[in-house]
């Protein structure tokens, strides 16, 4: 439950392309860390490397280490499938499984892990939906397809699906960018609640959102087109948004950049 992450000298490549350069950062347990920065700066790539999702793209590889409570997820013999079971992810676009009911969506991860006990699945389903603030809205139609929900509800369903397997860490890749302001607010409130139990890393383009939900903020940038992205600085969110130590950060925050 809620482990800490230590990233050391992380370099990410897609084939010959050097996407991200020398990232070192730490994420304490039970906190929210926001990744901000202009498009193409590698923040999503770094996020995806935290649960080895970037490996889906052929030719992707990584140098350096990502430690989850001290254990390297890139260590020899570590199965990426196991890594993803303990580090959950929520995506930019809500992606519930369209052919599955709401209930089956929530417990999909548990089923994959081999849980068959119906009562246990029902309990986890309710607990996760409550945890995602969705239970009251869907409790009467758990057997209806998840695709029938609104965008915001679908995203909360995906969060319920991610937390149902009790991950150590929850990664969120711009979880609100496809949602309206009210749904966004619901997700932000949820993130603040989930922080009690999970370590959360969120990528966002919305700086107000980063300021609202996160405890610490990491600013990523790149020198130029074709150059690798890099971490400019990471600090407490209040400092990043009031008195950052790097000029580039201040320019970006205040809108004098990109």
């Amino acid at each position, binding site marked *: 439950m809620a482990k800490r992450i230590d990233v050391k000298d992380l370099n990410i490549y897609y084939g010959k392309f050097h996407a991200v350069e020398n990232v070192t950062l730490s994420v304490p347990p039970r906190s929210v860390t926001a990744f901000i920065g202009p498009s193409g700066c590698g923040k999503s790539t770094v996020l995806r490397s935290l*649960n080895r*999702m970037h490996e*889906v793209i*052929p030719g992707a590889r990584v140098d350096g280490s990502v430690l989850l409570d001290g254990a390297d997820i890139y260590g020899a013999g570590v199965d990426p*499938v*196991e890594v*993803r*079971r*303990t580090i*959950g*992810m929520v*995506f930019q*676009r809500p*992606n*519930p*499984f*369209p*052919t*599955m009911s709401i209930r089956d969506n929530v417990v*999909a*991860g548990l089923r*994959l*892990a081999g849980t068959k006990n119906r009562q246990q699945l029902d309990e986890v389903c309710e607990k996760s939906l409550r945890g995602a603030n969705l239970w009251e809205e869907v409790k009467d139609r758990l057997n209806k397809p998840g695709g029938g929900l609104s965008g915001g509800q679908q995203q909360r369903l*995906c969060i319920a*699906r*991610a937390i149902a*397997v009790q991950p150590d860490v929850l990664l969120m890749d711009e979880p609100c960018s496809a949602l309206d302001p009210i749904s966004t607010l619901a997700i932000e409130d949820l993130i603040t609640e989930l922080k009690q139990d999970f370590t959360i890393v969120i990528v966002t383009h919305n700086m107000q959102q980063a300021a609202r939900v996160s405890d610490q903020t990491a600013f990523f940038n790149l020198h130029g087109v074709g150059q690798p992205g890099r971490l400019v600085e990471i600090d407490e969110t209040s400092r990043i948004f009031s008195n950052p130590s790097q000029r580039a950060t201040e320019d970006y925050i205040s809108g004098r950049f990109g």
Partner: protein
Amino acid sequence: MFRSLALGSGGFVVALIAAIGIFLLLQALPSLQANQVSFLTSGEWTTGDPNNMRFGILYLLWVTVATAAFALVLAMPIALGIALFLTQYAPRSLARVFAYIIDLLAAVPSIIFGLWGLQVLGPALVPTAEWLNSNLGWFPLFSDGNVSIRGGGTIFTAGIVLAVMILPIITAITREIFERTPKDQIEGALALGATRWEVIRTTVLPFGRAGYVSGSMLGLGRALGETVALYLILSGASGRAPELSLFDGDATIASKIANDAAEFNNEISAGAYIAAGLVLFVLTFVVNALARWITTSRTGK
């Protein structure tokens, strides 16, 4: 301008299909009226004498449907396996070459398949067929049929050849639909800790099922209408009623028509074959319509 052109072409196709149907019906009617037995429930086929027409579709229909169904049962799982392998497991370069070879299989003329079935596969299958017949003969499909197993001209041989022929169609359609599985679905499953097979089970198969089924239906349509290959393979009139076994022979509707076309010396005799053709026309029409219906009703959701 373009609108009327498009409308015209569309209308032309519909009119053409209707015209074919009406042609078949009009040509068949006089023979059906002269028929001494029931066309739909009899299996006799004596059409030489216009004054004593005795013909029924039953035996031909059995061989047609059984051959196509057997081919489908063989081809469907193999096509699924190939499509999954090509889209999910094979490296990209290998997949492209392999897919090309499968598509080439579709370009082989059916007469070649017929020759191969007659000269190579048929004789080669005889030991297997005899083994099935003597050891599993209690199972109706493997019991004695109405033609000699040793001759090889059976539904068993024909179905296997047909399976090879429809394999490329089913594979190509299934492969295409599997390739279009939304990436965010696949990533969603991966992020939950799904293995490759579990990703296939939770996303690729549910997404592609309708395409797979409709591809199989199109394959079935092709199998029902296949003529030349079966004309060579099947051993021709046995005159005996089929035993509802895979070792039945005789002819399918299409191969029967091809076989006897030289003997159409009067309109009434020819009408019997046209009536049989009409049945085949309706059958393939229904199968294809079913395929379309499955595709649209599933993807429309």
